[in-house]
């Protein structure tokens, strides 16, 4: 089974994140890492391949530093990497990103399963998996907290607020997974050493036959008009227990959809 995992390199949420003058995310001036939510599909892919053989290709679209996201995935155990890197991609929105990913996946060819994370931890749009499935003409089964693949079919469990659904799709399919699906491994020393020798291909938009005018900031359907710092955290709400503290607590949690 050949699996492509789409991963994103994002600014480290632990460090000071900023924007560029054109209101795009500053990816140069901050430390970045493999989006934590993308460690889950990498782990899921590795588990599937461990059980049934095949190859895991990690695919990323992003500037030079994004190679680190591929590196980390290779250290975890993925077999090879594809990095789409082109200056014209700067400022691309989800629509354009999904186009580039779709063309790259077509070029990779022979793919049984495309896995993605739930959302990127920078943009948190969560729309790329659906767009990608649409562009590839593949079934989309998203928000999987469990995934099994058998007999040419992918079966997922999706946990909603009030019920869990089990959904089946024929392969190839696009599946996005949640942070409930597994516990991602950390790279072993052997993995770290082996990753140095694993193949990584870098493709430009021309390699994919994608018109530079159809992606990037100018082609984006959405623009960031302005941004401001999050206001300092407000004082919390203090509820005095008058015998109904438990009820009030439950009401609060339920209103926030925690329970």
């Amino acid at each position: 089974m050949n699996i492509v995992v789409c991963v994103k390199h994002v600014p480290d949420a632990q460090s000071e994140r900023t924007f560029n003058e054109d209101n795009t995310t500053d990816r140069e001036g901050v430390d970045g890492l493999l989006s934590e939510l993308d460690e889950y599909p990498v782990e899921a892919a590795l588990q599937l391949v461990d059980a049934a053989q095949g190859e895991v290709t990690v695919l990323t679209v992003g500037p030079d530093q994004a190679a680190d996201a591929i590196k980390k995935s290779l250290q975890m155990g993925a077999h090879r990497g594809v990095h789409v890197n082109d200056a014209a991609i700067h400022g691309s929105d989800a629509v354009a990103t999904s186009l580039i990913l779709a063309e790259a996946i077509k070029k990779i060819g022979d793919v049984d399963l495309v896995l993605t994370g739930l959302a990127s931890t920078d943009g948190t749009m969560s729309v790329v998996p659906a767009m990608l499935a649409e562009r590839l003409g593949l079934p989309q089964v998203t928000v999987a907290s469990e995934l099994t693949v058998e007999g040419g079919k992918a079966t997922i469990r999706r946990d909603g607020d009030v019920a869990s659904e089990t959904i089946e799709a024929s392969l190839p399919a696009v599946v996005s997974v949640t942070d409930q699906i597994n516990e991602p491994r950390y790279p072993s020393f052997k993995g770290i050493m082996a990753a140095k020798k694993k193949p990584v291909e870098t493709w430009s938009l021309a390699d994919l036959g994608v018109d530079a005018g159809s992606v990037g900031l100018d082609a984006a359907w959405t623009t960031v008009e302005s941004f401001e710092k999050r206001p300092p955290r407000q004082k919390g709400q203090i509820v005095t227990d008058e015998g109904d503290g438990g009820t009030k607590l439950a009401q609060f949690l339920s209103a926030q959809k925690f329970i």
Partner: protein
Amino acid sequence: MNAKHPGRKPSLDPLDLVGIDDVLSDEEKAVRASVRQLCDKSIDPHVAEWFESGELPVARELAKELGDLGLLGMHLQGYGCAGMSAVDYGLACLELEASDSGIRSLVSVQGSLAMFAIHRWGSEEQKQEWLPRMAAGDAIGCFGLTEPDYGSDPGSMRTHARRDGDDWVLDGAKMWITNGSIADVAVVWAKVDGDEGGSEIRGFVVPTDTPGFSAPLIKHKMSLRASVSSELVLDGVRLPQSAIFPEVRGLKGPLSCLNEARYGIIWGSLGAARSSFEAALAYSKERVQFDKPIGAFQLTQSKLAQMSTELNLGALLALHLGRRKDAGTLLPQQVSVGKLNNVTKALEICRTARTILGANGISLEYPVIRHMNNLESVLTYEGTPEMHTLVVGQALTGESAFR
């Protein structure tokens, strides 16, 4: 200016004040990150409890997990070992000891003492038999040099091996042996009669299920409580000829191993110090007295600045010695400088951190008193500060002041 990211503005990291991270490679950082993840998941949530109860109930499972990551004998080549660099090994020791010196000791004794001894001095058969299992964490090793009556002066040891036909028979006792009671194999140093009279020190690979071998646990420790320390009793332990290290003779054998472990301690001790510093720094921002966070008082800032400065100096020294080790130019006297400085300074940092935490400084709710007590062991094992001072003194003056 950041060498790897020319456009990047340098930023201040309180835990790496002078920016030493910038001279580590991506792989070195990846090694460190993996060790930290293991520690976060499998050590930190439990270690205060292990320390308090004075037990390491999961030693076997933990050894397996450490082995899976590649930590055991990580700087050795072949035989299932990961073949990492000395700097990688140092960074791993630092992270492990930021969790607990006892866990770092388990790894040091396994990799730098027991496995290194077999790897460096063992026969091919001994290597094949033990190293792959030890690297995987399936077999645990210990290293018996110190005796009840001889510590700093191991050359005077009394443990003795005599010939009996083709066999060797070991008698004697070893003391303070890390991993002893849980070990599958013990590297034991003993005196044998020399060919031309007199006696010489030889090393033996002793399976711990050999009749006559026992390893009673040492209790009542106030330090390194999340680590197994044992006595080794050797009562007529009969071993085949194949159990002896074929070539090495004299103190050079054990000392070569100690040199490896001491190197790891140069880094490891900084881990305990970093953890204590981190706790003190966080505490100084939260704890309010006289209407101010205590970190806003000059006396506290002076302590924090001192701690941070020593931490950074120690890290630079460790990294420098590590690069020398990887280049093959590290001398034992340089290791002594590192061990002497870094453990002494780490202990001072922990003691200062303990004062910043006030009463909480003595509570196991915080890591500080645990690290501080642990470092009392680290200070005197693998050569006391006095011994390392004498090594440095001799290197400087050419005069030996040991006797």
